[in-house]
């Protein structure tokens, strides 16, 4: 059995083992996008390069057989730099957005394109679930939100943005109209208690997600009724109180206790709360000038300093969000803060370090020209202009109108955003897409099979699907077309994608290291892309 040394650690391997597999045996992670067990090495991504026996040039570890006495270097800075460059080169010729511009812009990072797809297919309950994963009060926001997401909608380059906010509103309204509104499941009781101060949008959202995580939540508020600024500052004609009450009702049904007419500072102190509860969320809104000290807070002005990514304050276990920490008053921002703080608190309560939301977007398309837009407009996308509700803008869409409007979405999002090797490694190697600017491939319109999506613009020509379709005995399969930079993967004789993948679709989707071949419904494949580095200490919590 040959013995090889990788980064100073030795391992005995079966004859014929590649350096990549030897490294895995040692638990050393070598990135690769084009390797698949039991398939010939493609040696196309070149991310797995290592240095063998001090040689000046590097070698792809997926194809090089380990030999007795070989000394391999992998985790060294110059090799990491080469790998980063490999990812940067691939990203420079990868057209598409990891996440859609609207999704990226939404302060709450709601997965808007998914919601629109669900609405367009009449799946209102699923759409609501998608919304409520990130937005605790959609019926409210559907009426008060300034529609930040719509400002970056790519459809604007064609005619007008998709009416996202109003679609979201009808989804939430329909849920209540159904008589059986959606109440999310609660995790088993954690045995932890969390105090939420302030029942405005931030506090309500925090309570909504904290309760789902199984914590006992008590909301304190100085006023008679919950809702904060939503109830006391927004006019009734803009936000009917019934809508607000209905959404607060869902939070009550999650088991959250409301203690009204209880003012921080006079009725109870922060010290009391920190003594009685395991964690505290402060969502009081902007402080009155000079009042901070009275409340037991160390705030220089009317706002409390906090880590704006995790919303932790200087005091352990005390989180804050909404207008208390941010200058810009925006209900959706406050609702997003409530969600972030809730996730942070849950991590804190489990003894983990709170993390900000990660919205890494390795690949972005940026501004596009009219020609590209015309290409994106093909297929199922409706070419009708933005709809206005028949009964007047203040009345909102009917479910039918919402469905028609949602068909205007260009679906800029990547269906493989949660199972993309290119995205994962680009993030971990800090590879920048803009590193190499230059000629890009021409965008080829997305092809939809019955359940498949083929986006050649995202293909990194790894070659795995060509091998899989060949081995799988496809009559047509996929093949390399052309050569060099312009080389593309496609079905022979310009046949549609479905003709090429008659029996190997699942295998190709699973192997595709990007979103070039994906299932049209991203929910079909929710597990993360298998980076095919079986490294035990790689923890996804």
């Amino acid at each position, binding site marked *: 059995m040959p013995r090889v040394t990788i980064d100073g650690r030795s391992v005995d391997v079966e004859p014929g083992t590649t350096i990549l597999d030897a490294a895995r045996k040692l638990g050393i992670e070598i990135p690769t996008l084009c390797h698949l067990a039991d398939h010939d090495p493609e040696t196309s991504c*070149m991310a797995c390069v290592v240095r063998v026996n001090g040689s000046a040039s*590097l*070698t792809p570890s997926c194809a*090089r057989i380990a030999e007795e006495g070989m000394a391999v270097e992998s985790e060294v800075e110059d090799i990491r730099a080469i790998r980063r*460059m490999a990812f940067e080169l691939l990203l420079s010729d990868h057209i598409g957005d990891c996440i859609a511009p609207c999704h990226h812009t939404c302060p709450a990072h709601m997965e808007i394109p998914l919601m629109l797809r669900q609405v367009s297919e009449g799946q209102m309950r699923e759409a609501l679930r998608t919304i409520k994963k990130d937005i605790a009060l959609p019926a409210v926001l559907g009426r008060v939100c300034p529609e930040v997401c719509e400002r970056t909608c790519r459809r604007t380059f064609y005619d007008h943005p998709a009416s996202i906010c109003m679609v979201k509103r009808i989804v939430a309204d329909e849920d209540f109209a159904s008589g059986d509104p959606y109440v999310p499941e609660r995790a088993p009781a954690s045995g932890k208690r969390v105090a939420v101060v302030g029942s405005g949008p931030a506090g309500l959202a925090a309570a909504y997600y904290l309760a789902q995580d199984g914590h006992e939540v008590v909301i304190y508020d100085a006023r008679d009724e919950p809702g904060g600024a939503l109830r006391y500052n927004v006019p009734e004609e803009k936000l009917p109180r019934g809508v607000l009450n209905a959404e607060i009702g869902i939070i009550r049904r999650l088991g959250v206790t409301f203690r009204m007419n209880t003012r921080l500072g006079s009725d109870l102190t922060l010290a009391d709360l920190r003594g009685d509860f395991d964690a505290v969320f402060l969502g009081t809104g902007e402080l009155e000038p000079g009042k901070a000290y009275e409340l037991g807070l160390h705030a220089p002005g009317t706002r409390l300093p906090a880590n704006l990514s995790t919303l932790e304050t200087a005091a352990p276990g005390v989180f804050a969000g909404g207008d208390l920490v941010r200058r810009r008053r925006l209900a959706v921002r406050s609702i997003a803060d409530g969600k972030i703080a809730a996730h942070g608190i849950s991590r804190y309560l489990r003894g983990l370090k709170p993390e900000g939301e990660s919205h890494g977007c390795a690949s972005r398309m940026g501004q596009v020209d009219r020609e590209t837009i015309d290409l994106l407009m093909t297929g199922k996308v409706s070419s009708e202009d933005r709809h206005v509700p028949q009964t007047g803008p203040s009345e909102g869409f009917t479910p039918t109108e919402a469905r028609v409007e949602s068909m205007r979405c260009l679906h800029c999002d990547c269906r493989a955003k949660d199972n993309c090797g290119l995205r994962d490694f680009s993030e971990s190697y800090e590879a920048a897409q803009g590193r190499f600017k230059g000629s890009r491939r021409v965008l080829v319109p997305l092809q939809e099979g019955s359940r498949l999506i083929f986006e050649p613009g995202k293909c990194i020509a790894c070659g795995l699907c*060509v091998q899989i379709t060949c081995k799988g005995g496809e009559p047509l399969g996929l093949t390399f077309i052309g*050569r*060099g930079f312009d080389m593309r993967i496609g079905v022979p*004789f310009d046949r549609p994608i479905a003709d090429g993948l008659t029996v190997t679709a699942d295998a190709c989707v699973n192997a595709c290291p990007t979103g070039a071949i994906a299932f049209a419904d991203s929910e079909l494949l929710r597990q993360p892309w298998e980076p095919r580095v079986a490294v035990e200490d790689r923890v996804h919590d």
Partner: protein
Amino acid sequence: MNAPASLPIDPAPAAPRADLAPIETIVGKLGRTREQLIPILQAIQAHYRYLPKEALERVCALTEITPAQLVSVATFYKQFRHTPCGKHLIRVCHGTACHVSGAGAISEAFEKHLHLPPGQSTDAEGAFTLEKVACLGCCSLAPAVQIDDGVYGNLTPGAVPYVLEEVRRAEKQGSTNGDRPSRNGDGAFGEIRIALDSCCLARGADKVFASLQHVAERFRLPARVKPVGCTGLSCHAPLIEIVRPGLPRILYADIKPEDAEAIALRHFEPRSWCNRLRSAATRALDALVDDTLPARNALPAEAAPVREFLGRQLRLATEHSGEMNPLDLAEYQARGGFQALERAMKERTPDELIAEITKSGLRGRGGAGYSTGTKWRQVRDASGLTKYVICNGDEGDPGAFMDRMILESYPFRVIEGLAASAWAVGAREGIFYIREEYPLAVQRIEQAIARCEDAGILGRTESDSAPCFRVVRGAGAFVCGEETALIASLKGERGRPRLRPPYPSECGFRGCPTLVNNVETLALVSWILRNGAESFTKLGTPRSAGTKVFALAGKVRRSGLVEVPMGITLREIVEKLGGGVPNGKRLKAVQIGGPSGGCVPASLADTPIDYEALVDAGAIMGSGGMVVLDEDDCMVDIARYFLRFANDECCGRCSFGRIGSRRLLDILERICTGQGRPGDLDDMQRLGRAMKVACLCGLGKTAPNPVLSTLRHFREEYEAHLAGRCPAGRCKELIRYEIGESCIGCTLCAQHCPADCIPMAPYQVHTIDSAKCTRCDACRQVCPVDAVKVR
């Protein structure tokens, strides 16, 4: 096998379908295996002049080749066209020599006069199809264009409409090329030798040959008209050499068919009495009218330029240059051919032969310079009953055509080298892989193999005692010069290199140990067999023994092929053999090694040439293309030229090759068009160095060399471009043309301007509308008083 059922074909075809009957014939003749895929496609294209889709679908139905395999191969190789081809095929050479002589402007002129929309290659009438070719190998005719079978040299953009007109006129008149006569005079006392290699043919040598034969026959001259191989003096082709017993040889250069009779009759007395009278009359008339013609072209072999060109050379691979009939086996044998091999096979063991080759210090002439003996040893030692030897004739460097010349002029020599290697390593089968752009080389090797088979030197089948050889034509892919790509191509696959190890010496063609040697290497093997290893090691340098053939082109007075001992300096080649840089310009650099090589600056011209010294200077030996550059050449443009080539020829497999080389080119394009940014030079350096270590194959690893070497030696030129200036005045976007006060108003510039941007103004100083000017340089070239200036 898993041959697919016939493909579902759309029931209602819109266009009339091609007649598919020939497909069955082709497949029946060539076979149904995947290995035959490229020959099948070549046969289909020969028939239809492109690859009709329905024909390809038919191939899948008739053979074991799957649609995926077929499409991947049919779209990989540049030879294959997928749209119908015009009646006439125009191939504009974009070799290095043509590039520095303005090939870009020639292509643009054709596009303009054929009214080709961007991305289209065939004109609206379907009369002309325009293509770019990497190199026609007519470097001394630069810029050159091949239209159908004819080559037009030294073209200018202004001449393009006349060339097109000529082709149209010829078509109307229905002119045909008559069959070339092939009979030689018998009982000759002397020889009229005429080189019939591709360079000479491109300049009309076949017509000269025909008229020489005609004269010899008509006047019954006491001379044999003998076709011979290349003399190397391509810049003076066609060449005639007069050989008379006991008299000095005389060389005539730049001969036209109408000169042939006068030259032949000047040196040989007609044997028939009445013809003698006629010829005397002709000669008298000639003398009266223009006796300067032959004299103008005569280059006595002792003349200084010829002596300098030929005298310093040392002919090993090209031994008996210009003396032998390439296809005369008896003549080859009379000069010792095949005898040394025969002796070796009788008196020595294969191991001894390998030891001899190893001792000679011969290194692969294809570029990398690996020890030939060691390579043979590895294949001999590799386990396996079946082994193969391959002659790599896929010479693709733009500006390099030495392998083509050797194959065309000395086919038996290369066959002997390959036969020796087959015997040494224990192979029974040999393959000549020759690029399809070299039809004459393919034909000569095929004919030479047939003659060797007739003589029993080669076998006809694998069961014969002698090895059997065959020719496989490449299909237009520079990357197939890389041995693993070449083998993939032989298997009927895309020519993609793979990771080595395993080397072909262990696992090559059909998974068997395979020896791949370059053409020139094999030609040298024959010489070593005959003269012994020691005579070889005496030549050259200690690290690089023997000689090397270079294709000398660019800014030199005498271009062509030269074979020189290793260790000679660049200066000696450029100044002595090449006659120096013409027009009083200064030598700036020599580009060596083509797209994998680099530019050696004039300051390093005294570098003795061997493998290692060239690497130290930032270039590589490569296959031996040598392009001389003068002060008018822009080094950034040269780097861009080679990067464009690398991009065109990249296989597309690995990320660094496919995207890296494009990103390097992107930056160069920016710099050449005045869009460069401050960080660009560092970016190129970083990316180039990464490609050198991380590309999968040798071609990718060396692709950045033209950039890195020019960055190293000519960084100030790059910086000037970043500042918006092209010091050599080549980069169109950074220059403008102006007409100075010295203009005499002759209107020539206005007449030649293809963009109509110079208003005709007789006897006045002309002006150029810079907005319309395409920077084609036509005006500057025609101006009789050098009034056109580039700023």
